[in-house]
């Protein structure tokens, strides 16, 4: 994040399908070299379209794209040599072995990593001679990422790399990505998993309806809610006096959630006693009360009123 060079820049990006459908609606982004940048948003928000434009696989309807200081129109081959791409879904050939697939992809690049090195990097050494069809979902996804790493890229695009994976496989894949980040290289990742973005990304951009609606570090975005903690309350009787609760010390916001209310709170040890005192004074009975750390999910809900998976 510190070198100052820009890995990726796009401005006023628009992608329209058949005039009516606007997938990307005026998007500006700048990703410095060495950053892990996350594009966050629900399904259909325009994440994949945006990424595929940045990857040079789709032409934008309007707008400028600059990758590693180059343009797709004039420098496609040079760019492809320096980029790693993992698409949202890739079905590699069922009857090719893992090692054969990596060797095939390696042959497309003039320089890159050896298949054996990559197999180690994604912990698939033992599957080298197994057919693609015999791999589990997590192994297939790790192989897809290995294919993206085969040209030893400076910039890595991962489109929903962990969607549909079990927790164990997600952790393994995160390790691979973190290992790649250590080399000071740039990653652009799309996801609708908030924990994934918080864990991996230096900065995230939240996308909804093809527009960037928030941009910052996960910490900053969560802090923008006004509180790092969330108190979830369900009352046995009557509604919560939102105005009064909102003014309690340590409470920075109140919103409805399914079955009750969520309070942005900071610090928790001030807000919680104040809330309990308020309820006792109002003669109201608690049915349920819980606290948790605020997540990017809360940020998204606060921004759009909807959940990411809706």
């Amino acid at each position, binding site marked *: 994040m510190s070198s100052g060079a820009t890995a990726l820049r796009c401005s006023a990006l628009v992608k329209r399908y058949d005039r009516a459908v606007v997938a990307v609606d005026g998007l500006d982004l700048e990703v410095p070299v060495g950053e892990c940048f996350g594009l966050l948003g629900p399904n259909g928000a325009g994440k994949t379209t945006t990424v595929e434009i940045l990857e040079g696989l789709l032409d934008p309807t309007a707008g400028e794209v600059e990758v590693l200081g180059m343009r797709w129109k004039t420098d496609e081959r040079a760019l492809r040599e320096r980029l790693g791409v993992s698409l949202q879904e890739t079905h590699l050939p069922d*009857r090719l072995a893992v090692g054969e697939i990596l060797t095939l992809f390696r042959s497309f690049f003039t320089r890159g990593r050896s298949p054996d090195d990559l197999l180690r990097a994604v912990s698939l050494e033992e599957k080298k001679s197994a057919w693609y069809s015999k791999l589990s979902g997590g192994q297939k996804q790790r192989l897809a990422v290995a294919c993206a790493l085969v040209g030893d890229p400076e910039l890595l695009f991962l489109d929903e790399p962990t969607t549909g994976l079990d927790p164990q496989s997600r952790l393994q894949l995160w390790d691979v990505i973190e290992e790649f980040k250590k080399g000071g290289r740039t990653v652009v990742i799309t996801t609708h998993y908030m924990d994934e973005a918080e864990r991996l990304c230096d900065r995230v951009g939240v996308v909804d309806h093809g527009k960037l609606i928030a941009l910052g570090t996960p910490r900053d975005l969560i802090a923008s809610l006004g509180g790092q903690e969330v108190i979830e309350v369900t009352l046995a009787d009557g509604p919560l006096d939102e105005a009064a609760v909102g003014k309690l010390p340590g409470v920075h916001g109140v919103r409805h959630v399914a079955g009750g209310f969520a309070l942005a709170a900071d610090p928790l040890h001030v807000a919680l006693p104040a809330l309990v005192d308020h309820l006792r004074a109002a003669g109201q009975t608690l049915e349920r009360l819980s606290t948790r750390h605020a997540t990017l999910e809360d940020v998204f809900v606060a921004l759009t009123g909807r959940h990411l998976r809706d």
Partner: protein
Amino acid sequence: MTDGPPKPRSALAELTLARFRLFFREPSAMFWTFGFPVVLAVALGIAFRNRPPEAVYVAVEAGPGAEKALAALASTEVKATVEDAATARAELRVGKVSVVVVPGEPRTYRYDETRPQARLARLLVDDRLQRAEGRLDPTRVTDEHVTEPGARYIDFLVPGLLGMTLMSSSMWGIGYVIVELRTKKLVKRMLATPMRKGDFLLSFVVMRALFVLIEVPVLVAFGWLAFDVRVVGSVLLVLAVSLLGALAFAGLGLLVASRAQNTQTVGGLMNLVMMPMFVGSGVFFSSANFPEAVQPVLRALPLTALNDALRAVINEGAGAGAIARPMVILGLCGVLSFAAALKLFRWL
């Protein structure tokens, strides 16, 4: 981190290798390429094997002179029975007998003159009866029986099956496979690498060309060993014709696959292209059976050209000069379809 000494093979070599691996690991592809033509050749070879000449069946209408005629007819060539008029007529109608003989003066032969078998039967019957009644032939004759290898149905069939196999394996092996790669987004995935588009397409062509070197010897050897179908002309020329044919159909396969977005569409398109050629290009029977008016169309079809050239070399021992015309048709078909396919090809 980066590669050590083992120099990676070129992208074209790796892509071609992958095509070969995928083919040999797909049992159904293997069957349609190698098994199916062999099964067809065996089945048709048995159905149309050369048999001793069949006897002709004749009914003699009951009445005066019937028994005498029956005695005169009885031989290995003619099987005759005496029937009453109604039965004889019925047997003639269903084709159980070819001719009904009505004895008398004049003697009547009743038969369907549009059926070659019936005309043959009439001649045989008349010949036998006239001789029995004392006809003398002015010239003495002797018969010499021959069966010429190269003129049997199986000799006609094997080159046709070879042409058909070259067509369908080129079309399926390229058209279907490319569309499948496209629907699985594998083409898109590979385009996200520095792979050259030309290498991708060329790998299919190289694969087909190399494949001819396996496909043709297997079928030709089978025809030779199982049915004694010999290559009268040059084996190298057979290979050269096959290669040109495979490339022409590779171009057509690519053209058919250039825009199709799913495998059903491309399957339908391929049948649309291939079906007329299965019927009209002389795989199973000579295309000369079709009316004169459609002959120019049939002769311009690439499979007709391929089959004609293969038959000329395999059955008649033709040299390269004699098959220039079909070779030009195949070459043109290949060049034009490749050019059109490259113009139309949808990469994503």
